[in-house]
């Protein structure tokens, strides 16, 4: 399934914060987790994760520290901050509200607003 760029971009920050809320991680591992949790549906341009992480860091939502990877190379690890958890809660509420609204609009639209089809027929003539 193709997911448009705008939708991927809008969900990127909540996704990263959500994954980091599970525990400290680094760029490549985050990308792998995103593939995993989305069942491979969400394809990021890997490189764009880093500017996003830096922006979150500048905003105080995550913090970073250089560590050493198992292969001996330098690696930057990211951790969520209390401020980041607050932001994550906000994101969650917002997405839930959007999802609920969409669910209502698509699933129960006919029952709640019976005049809708009439309007559409009016346009068709």
């Amino acid at each position, binding site marked *: 399934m193709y997911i448009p760029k705008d939708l991927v971009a809008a969900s990127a920050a909540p996704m990263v914060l959500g994954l980091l809320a599970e525990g400290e991680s680094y760029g*490549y591992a985050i990308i792998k987790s995103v593939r995993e949790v989305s069942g491979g549906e969400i394809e990021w341009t890997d490189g764009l994760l*880093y500017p*996003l992480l830096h922006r979150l860091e500048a905003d105080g939502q995550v913090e970073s520290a250089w560590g050493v*990877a198992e*292969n001996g190379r330098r690696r930057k690890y990211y951790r969520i901050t209390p401020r980041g958890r607050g932001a994550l809660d906000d994101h969650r509420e917002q997405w839930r509200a959007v999802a609920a609204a969409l669910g209502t609009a698509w699933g129960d639209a006919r029952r709640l607003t019976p005049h809708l089809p009439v309007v559409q027929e009016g346009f068709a003539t």
Partner: protein
Amino acid sequence: MTPTSPGKRRATPSAAEPSFEAQVGEWRAFALKRRGVTAADADELEGHLRDQAADLQQSGLSADEAFLVAVKRLGSQDEISREFARAHSSRLWKQLVLAGPPGDSDAPASAPRRREFWAVAIIAVAAALAIKVPALFGQDIARDPHLFYPRNLAAFVAGGVGAYFAWKRQVRARTVLGVSALAAIGIALVNAYPFELRGQTVYLAALHLGVVLWLLAGVLYAAGDWRSHARRMDVIRFTGEWFVYVNLLGLGGGVLIGLTLGAFGLFGVDTSGFVDEWLLPCGLIGASVVAAWLVEAKQGVIEAIVPVLSKVFTPLFALLLLALVVTIPLTWSRGPLDRDALVIVDLLLAVVLGLALYATSARDSADSAGVFDWLQLVLVAAALVVDGLVLANMIGRIADYGFTANRTVAVGENLLLLVNLAWTAWLGWRFVRGKRGVAALERWQTGYVPVYFAWAALVVVALPPLFHFA
């Protein structure tokens, strides 16, 4: 001999590892050139690239293939660097001033950058102290009856800048020796000639020695490749940017000097001696080296400032010259009598030439002619008319008064600039008519540089004896 080489060649397929390393290194170097990407960002991206490539190799891809796929997944460097720049808009500014100062907490300043910082510091301090060495032998700056400092100021400035580029470009020893030898001849002559100290020739020689030494420093800037037109254009660009930076540093220096005098003055301490003897001369020399480094450091980070200035001032100077073209015939009888007239016109021509030169230097050679090129043509043409009028007005008078050293140099320089501008106007005309590319204009200017050098050298070497050092 021959049997070994096929053996070597056969060994290459197994050397896939180094080729992967080389590819990663190349990718990294390429990323670092982008604005907004620091060494730490590149480390992070490189780590990602390696992790991804390692995973791909485990699932059966060759090193080469793994590298290609990993790079593709990482996305275009253009896009990434743009996002980095947006996330850290302050970085674009920071880079401009501090190309990796020691102790930047975020980016572990890479070794070459730190080395450059210290090299610049050492060269600047050494050059600044060098100007105080003659004082040890009784050459006072305040009391300078033999005009030692006016004669040698250019040597100190060009020496510091030249030393920096000799180090920075790793110029071959032979080139450095050749340039130094030529410089030494000029400096020796200007110091050894028995000038009449109240005369004109001593100042003319010192001034033109400055041009000679600066162009020699330009040879070091070009790493000895002075025949290349592209390198010459770089030297011209560098000169303009350097000039702007020296003036900016000078503004800061002026504030420093003013506050030094004022603050100590509050407590009745007179620091004017310190300012004249140390702060001013050492600051000037140090600033010229630091300015050279700044021009180097910010290359490619922001757009050069000099072409922008020349674009702003081209219309204004075009107006000035058009007004002069109208005014001169009206005031013909009151024409310029004094000897300064030629100097002023020379300066005017030099400014016009500079405007044309720097506007051209930043031009995209693929663009076709636009309004600005017409404006520039008007500027150059008006300058030619003004020059012709002033020369015509003065020729008779010069014949009456005879040739002094000042007048000879002023007329000579006028002719040099006139020839240059006339051909520039012709090429500019061909260009706006779409018959010649802008490259021809650029080549003409870079080709003319040796003429300036020859003229300046002639003034240094031959003019003083011709006018009996008067």
